């Protein structure tokens, strides 16, 4: 069974490809949704196309599918229309699936199941990555604010941090917000910190 993954996020495509390979599917092609991607898909003549639900290029792909229908190669979205739970889970995970009509649903269900799990795993990974990036950015901001306090108030580093923390607690704000405000104020005052 030939599966095409339309994706321009290299990481998500490979997460999905790995999963499909583990499950024993070996005819998998990744096509980025750019330029003449529809022509590439047409040449590949896949049985199943998996795509990010949020991709702006879905309308372009569906137009091709409508035209293909005229060529007696009907393709429909989702396998078993009656399985609302599965479709809901796919939409929540951000998977859209295009399947050649007539392909038995037992053969396609494991692919869609796996795609949902993999898309969810990618989303989790992405949010962890974003979180890690935020932590690093926050730390840099706090370090800058500490340096300003150490210089202008002549404080040792632990005292500068303690001052930021107690200010944050008194004002009911996050330390990084207090640090940002301090940096902005310092920039405005131009005291060279």
């Amino acid at each position, binding site marked *: 069974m030939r599966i095409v993954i339309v994706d321009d996020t290299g990481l998500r495509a490979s997460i999905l490809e790995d999963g499909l390979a583990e499950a024993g599917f070996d005819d998998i092609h990744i096509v980025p949704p750019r330029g003449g991607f529809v022509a590439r898909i047409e040449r590949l003549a896949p049985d199943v196309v998996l795509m990010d639900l949020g991709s702006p290029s*879905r309308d372009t792909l569906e137009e091709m599918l409508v035209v293909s229908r005229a060529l007696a190669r009907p393709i429909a979205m989702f396998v078993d229309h009656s399985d609302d739970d599965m479709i809901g889970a796919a939409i929540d995970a951000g998977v859209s699936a295009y399947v050649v009509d007539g392909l038995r649903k037992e053969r396609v269900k494991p692919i869609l199941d796996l795609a949902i799990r993999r898309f969810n795993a990618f989303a989790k990974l992405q949010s962890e990555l974003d979180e890690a990036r935020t932590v690093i950015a926050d730390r840099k901001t706090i370090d800058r604010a500490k340096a300003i306090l150490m210089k202008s108030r002549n404080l040792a580093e632990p005292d500068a941090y303690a001052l930021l923390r107690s200010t944050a607690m008194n004002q009911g704000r996050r330390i990084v917000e207090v640090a940002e405000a301090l940096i902005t104020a310092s920039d405005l005052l131009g005291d060279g910190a």
Partner: protein
Amino acid sequence: MTRISAAFLPLTDSAVLVAAREKGFAAEQGIELDLIRSESWATLRDRLVYGQVQAAHMLAPLAIAVTLGLSQHPASISAPFKLSVNGNIFVMGTVFAAALDPDIARRVEDPIATAHDFAAAIGLYRRKPVIGIVHRFSCHALLLRYWLGYAGIDPDRDLVLRVLPPSLMAAALEAGEIDGFIAGEPWSTVAVQAGSAEIVMVGARVWQRGVEKVLAMRTEWMDANAETVDRLLIALDRAAAWCDDPAHHGELAELLARREYVGQNAEAMLPTLAGRLIVRSGEAPVEVPATMLFHREAVGFPWRSHALWIYSQLVRWGMAEPSPEAEARAADVFRSDIYRRALADTGAPMPGASLKVEGALSKPMGVGSHSAGLILGPDRFFDGKTFDPADIEGYLRSFG
């Protein structure tokens, strides 16, 4: 508070939903309106059809196509409210536009002459022009086909129509993947402002009061939540009145410009709202009244004749098989009865009928209305044809 999620695409004509949320009209009616941005019509359709949202800002022909099952499993969609009238703009790259009337005001004013110029320009062009459309089932594509068809151009033979999302059109034009496109605003204005395109045709000049986006719901959900639907329609009617007021256009443009809505400069939104279009970068704007309307003339009222005009065009271009059943189902997508029920006690001007002959008014006219003061604007088609919903077959024969 009742929570309602509505999906939208980043377009100027999402204004009524954005204003309903941001200016508190929804909250006044006890509705917490969540707006879910979508990047493609396919995604918006799936979110609605599979119940991830309760309402959507939808292309009117798409609502009918989904109901008739023209491109995927059929699902019954209802449109009890129109979110906008007019607003589509057709642009071509500067090279192609150079073959058209250089007087930009005249070019836009006279769609008959420009259609013929366009046909001649196709003959001079080195290959079939590739035109971007946002969806097969869009008012844009139907209007473009209608206009080109007048000049003897067969859009399926003489052009290549390529579907692209509105937000990628300008980049595709720059990259030479398409030669021009028709899209909802602000995307045509964005391409003109970038200096890569010129306006060739304005929807409001081809059909003076052309149906555009509708508020779409699953029929089943709409029927089961009548009271909520009524409150939502009242909120949208008030939001639409706010959007239509020129005094609010500056604020509306700023709201739409936000990253979570359209995500473009407010300047890109203003020409459409004001009806002063920049046809060619660096030149004085051209006045096009009623470029986009939200409220006056009972814009929100879903005329069944609008739905039937769309059906007639789907049949004309071979996208739908004609049948009395399909015709009735298409007309039923536009739920003027729900509009009447929801806005009955609000003093909103209410048309006496639900069908009218489209294209018959050449100047504003007062019409029979339960409450006084409904004036309908001129609604002529540029070719002077009229659409009588009682004789669709005759209308279709008139195109030869």
